């Protein structure tokens, strides 16, 4: 079912294809323009190219993990202000610490969040409600 477009771009960086496709679909259903990247490197390239309104960033990924990508992103002038939410199943105090230092807006545990709730959260963060 197609909703009217929201004119918001979201970049989802996730290495698990089925999850990536699922969440991207969800965002698309709601009206986002959902961009996909399968690893950190690809995600960095697309982010710098597309300048999405928000990045949903996984941590554990091949070819550059999420936080490395993020630190690289922050070196970019646009990237330093990009909105990022970390969305990962594995986390530790250290990871969260680093993520906070790199300016993530939130840290969600994937398996605890329904896709629709993730969408809600993103909307909240973008003050779209």
């Amino acid at each position, binding site marked *: *079912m197609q909703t009217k477009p929201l004119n918001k771009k979201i970049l989802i960086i996730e290495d*698990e294809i*089925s*999850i990536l496709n*699922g*969440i991207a*679909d*969800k965002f698309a*259903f709601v009206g986002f323009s959902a961009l996909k990247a399968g690893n950190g490197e690809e995600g960095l390239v697309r982010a710098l190219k597309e300048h999405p309104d928000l990045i949903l960033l996984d941590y*554990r990924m091949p070819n550059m993990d999420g936080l490395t990508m993020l630190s690289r992103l922050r070196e970019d002038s646009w990237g330093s202000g990009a909105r990022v939410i970390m969305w990962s*199943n*594995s986390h*530790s*105090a*250290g990871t*969260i610490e680093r993520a906070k230092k790199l300016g993530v807006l939130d840290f969600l*545990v*994937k*398996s*605890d969040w*329904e*896709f*629709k709730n993730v969408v809600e959260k993103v909307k909240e963060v973008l003050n779209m409600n």
Partner: protein
Amino acid sequence: MRLLSKLILITLGGIIITTAVAGYFTFIFTKSALQKTIKDQQEELGRQTMDKISRLLYERYIDIQSIAEEEDLEEYLTKGGDRKSPERRMNELRFLSGPWDILFAVDKNGTIVLSTKKEESGTQKKVQAEPFSLIAFNAALAGKPYYSDIIVSDDTGRRTIIFAAPVRNEDSPKKPIVGVVVANLSWPAINEIVFTIPAPLATHLHDKNGVLIAANEPIAQNMLFQESFRDNPAIARALKGEKGFIIGPGMTHKSGSGQAMKTDDASPESLISFLQEDGYLGFRGNGWILSIETPTDIAFAPATDTAWNIVLLMFPIILFSAALTMAFLNRFIVRPVTDFTEVTNVIAEGDLTKRAEIKSKDEIGKLAKSFNTMADRVQDSFNILRTDKDRIETLMESIGDGVMAIEPDGKIILWNKAAHDISGWPKEEALGKNFHDILKLVRENDKKDNSGFIDTAMKTKTAQTMANHTALVRKDGKEIPVGDSAAPILDANGVLQGIIVVFRDVTEERIIDKAKEEFVSIASHQLRTPLTAIKGYAGMLLDQDAGPLNEKQNEYLREIKIGNDRMIGLVTALLNVSRIDLGVFAIEPQQVNFEEIAKEIFKELAEEISVKNLHIETDYDKNLPEINADAKLIRIILYNLLANAVKYTPSKGFVSFRIQKQNHHLTITVADSGYGIPKDAQSKIFTKLFRADNARQKDPNGNGLGLYIVKAIVEASDGKIWFESEENKGTTFYISFPLGGMKKREGTRMLQ
């Protein structure tokens, strides 16, 4: 001083003293005895000499009487006649008896009718012309033989003693006296006797007036017949009739001119023996005195010399026997003692196996025996101790952890092999040094000194654990992570003797822990990924993103979602449990308001509460302080208890929640009127994955990990958890939570 020297000194001293005393007395007594002998001998000599003289005179006395009985003489004096024959006889007799200086016969008228002196023969000289002869004549005429004292003869002019005897007519019945024979003794005969006594014995013959009449000293010859020695003590006594000896000044000594002089004193002290003439048989003598004097130094010289010689002879004998004694003492006493001392020295030096030889049964032997027994005991004790010590050392060296013991002042007194291996400091370099110089413990992050736990152990006398993330700086500067503890060493009185510090290289442990943690992390990630996908897609289907659903589709999808969520819950719980087991979950204390958290939880559970129509009671202490605790962990605790209470209470039941502040802790009480925990399940309620049967019945979805996690967190906070429950009546859980709160702990992961 050595024993032998002492022995020699004592023996020698004793011997010298004894010898000196004995020698002195021997000398004195021997000398005295010998002197007596000498005195006796001298006296005897005197007596014999005097005897000889007396005998001589006696013989002359007899001789004159024999002569008086000569027939020729008798006949001539009686009848007269030819003179020649009796004269010749007289000349014969002069030599046959005597010898006489002169021999003559006098008739009863006093006429010298016969004489050996030619001038007188036939001259008809009257005997009255010779006064001394006259006396003799008259005495004999009276009928008795006569002798005179020493006189100078009228006849011959020589010293002599006149002997006279009456001549009797034997034929006539009355034996009338017809004449007298008179003779002059040859004085040399007496002199001769005196002269037989050899020098240095000075022999003096004195008459009864003390006048010297004969002497054997050539030098005294000029004193003869001159002075009387009557005053001489010896002579004086002799004149009294005594005989014996005195020791006194000699009677004569040489003057400077070589002449003998009479002395009273200041002449060499002499042994003077004296006696008075006793006569011999019929001859009474003239009371002459014989003295023999010898200068004492000459007289007694033999005594002194002999005594000396005897004494001197003693010395070598005594010395010899002394040497012998000392040799024996040395062999039987000193040497055993020396040998024994040698043995004790060897033992003292360290050789405990040495034993004394027991060579005798005397006290020294007994001493050696006792000593050996004692040495045996000492050796045994030493061996036992050494065995124990070796055992302890072996234990120490084989302990895998580094072990260091220090004295209260910090000096290292024990350092085992593992300590060497871990720190790089060998034992020789570590022992005796202050531990701060050797065992450098620092905080891993800022390299600050982290050995405070040792000082704390010392001050509080309690065991202390090393702080987390402590590193040891090796001798070569390398850092290795270490862990372990310090414990005080207290003696029987509780006095601090030192500290034992144990440390181990935890690099391996860390690696392993990290690997475990990584594994759990990866495993949970791997588990969660597909669960996430299912959750996502099921959710989207239920959201009708893929199109509308019929009732059955909706229902089935719900079941999928429920099952999946359960799975996710289980994975999360397992992850927490694994973190609890590893002890690596983080505690980040902050000011936590328990009340607020509880209220949030109640909000979350609100739907279920209203559905079940449960009555909720809450009681928050008015003075409830904010506790320094990890909010997440508190949340887990409270959520678990409250969710359980709600879950396991049937409709219309109640749940109460109370927090109260006590002196040192908070008491949290969660009570319900629910199904309760059966008795047989109560002991297992806190164990992993356990679900009581009734609970499983009521809610098949629980994973049995909640209470395990709650208990772990409570206990990690130094709190306590317990409960009371009765089946179908209700359950009350109590938590006692310290007001001091939770201590910060660095963990690699947080519990979810």
